[in-house]
């Protein structure tokens, strides 16, 4: 009887995994189908794709990001990215950091429980600088990033504009930085894995399946979700 229940349990887990894989596959197919449909619609109207967008914003991507940020009811002052996946992608995290800065978020925290970003922070900083040039279209004024990494080594880059912090579990007391209002968790593990226990008392959590190939649309979606949530703070 015990063996039977054991088998049934394994079957249940298998069904859940299959269900999740199917849902994730369908989501990807739907997205690619939607974008192909849009292209075909534009082609059928004999409009080149470039005209379908907003010409000024195509030339100056910064305006688009700024306008997206301003269109939200509320924007977090401090956002956290919690990566629970085993192998982090520096490019994707760098993209997220650049988009956050462009949209107007002042503090960005990046965390993984293996301290990978912590140990390779110079690589991350290089990647952020590279992605800035790539995403902002070579526009003359780069965002200024101040890197805070466990207090011992800081990289200054001119004026303070946005601060990126790499956090070791429970080591850093962020006395001057506001608590993160929003944490976006990437990956399959449903846990904070030691991320800033003191500071997350009122933090909203939003879950994104993976940080790999994460798009600006995914980030904007998370920010829109955050802007629509209400906090009663005990009342």
């Amino acid at each position: 009887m015990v063996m039977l229940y054991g088998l049934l349990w394994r079957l249940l887990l298998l069904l859940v995994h299959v269900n999740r894989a199917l849902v994730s596959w369908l989501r990807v197919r739907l997205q690619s189908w939607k974008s192909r449909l849009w292209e075909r619609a534009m082609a059928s109207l004999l409009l080149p794709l470039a005209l379908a967008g907003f010409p000024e914003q195509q030339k100056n991507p910064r305006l688009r990001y700024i306008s997206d940020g301003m269109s939200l009811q509320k924007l977090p002052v401090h956002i956290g990215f919690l990566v629970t996946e085993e192998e982090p992608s520096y490019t994707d995290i760098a993209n997220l950091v650049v988009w956050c800065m462009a949209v107007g978020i002042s503090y960005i925290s990046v965390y993984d429980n293996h301290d990978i970003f912590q140990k390779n922070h110079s690589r991350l900083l290089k990647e952020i600088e590279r992605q800035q040039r790539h995403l902002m279209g070579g526009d003359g004024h780069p965002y200024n990033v101040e890197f805070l990494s466990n207090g011992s080594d800081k990289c200054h880059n001119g004026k303070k504009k946005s601060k990126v912090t790499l956090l070791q579990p429970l080591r850093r007391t962020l006395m001057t930085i506001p608590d993160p209002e929003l944490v976006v968790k990437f990956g399959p593990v449903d846990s904070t894995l030691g991320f800033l226990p003191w500071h997350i008392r009122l933090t909203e959590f939003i879950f994104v399946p993976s940080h790999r190939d994460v798009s600006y649309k995914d980030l904007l979606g998370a920010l829109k979700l955050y802007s629509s949530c209400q906090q009663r703070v005990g009342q």
Partner: protein
Amino acid sequence: MSWIKEGELNIIERISANVLKAGPMPKHVAFIMDGNRRFAHINNMERQDGHTQGFNKLAETLRWCKHLNIPEVTVYAFSIENFKRTQEEVDGLMDLARQKFERLLEERENLEKHGVCIRVLGDLNLLPLDLQQAIAKAVLATKNHNKCFLNVCFAYTSRYEMTNAVRELAWGVEQGLIRSSDVSETLITECLYSNKSPNPDLLIRTSGEVRLSDFLLWQTSHSCLVFQSVLWPEYSFWNLCEAILQYQLNHKSIQKARELHREHQASLQLEADRLCTAEELQHHGNGKPTDAHTRQEALLHYITCREERVQNFLTALKHKRDLFFHDLCIEATTA
């Protein structure tokens, strides 16, 4: 309405429970019982009735946990922030609490039969004195029961709990019971209100909100978090099963993360012990360089002394906390 709902699971529930129990089961589940007021609003009830339904649901959930062999449950009943609500609502909640804790004392035999130990975590000084006394009686009456544990967080916030733990540590250093170098993450954990319990394996929040609202922030750093949209008074056995299934799916990765964290803490402690030992050897030494054997012996001796200091401190802390409840009970009987 009773704290413990009697009754067995039906056949389908029993089969599902047995299937789940074939996998790893959480030993400690924490609940943020959110959604009572929204439930009352949707069903055209008074808010107070919503809270009463919420309590009934708690009793039912405890019954399910008993059948699922989950020995420990912690619930977020009343936050320090909730004092900001209208006086009417706060008074209503205090009355409900009074009723329930007094009912608990009437059910003492039943609680003993089931071996239920009730603990109340929070800044109890904020509560009306008669409620404090009822709580103290309930806690002392069930203190020695050890089959299952219910921790009720009342007048609680995690930040207050953590601050209080640090205050206790400062008291310990002032009293000369421990040194400031003895303070560690592990020792802070031992000073929290929840120090008699293992960390929750699973935290469930109902009503669709996705935040922790100052609940067990320290203790749930490596717990499985499940957010469910169902309102608390509508919580069902199947919702609980769904949460446990999610725990089981996350079990391996969370265990790995916990182990990594434990190892990291152990290595930090060893590093700290080595530093302190080296300092001591420098102070008491005669300037001659020490050999590895002497250093190792000194290290082991230092660790033994530190552990003894910490044990004495924790015993004194426990005594202080037990005295608080005893004094309340004595006050109640002499009043």
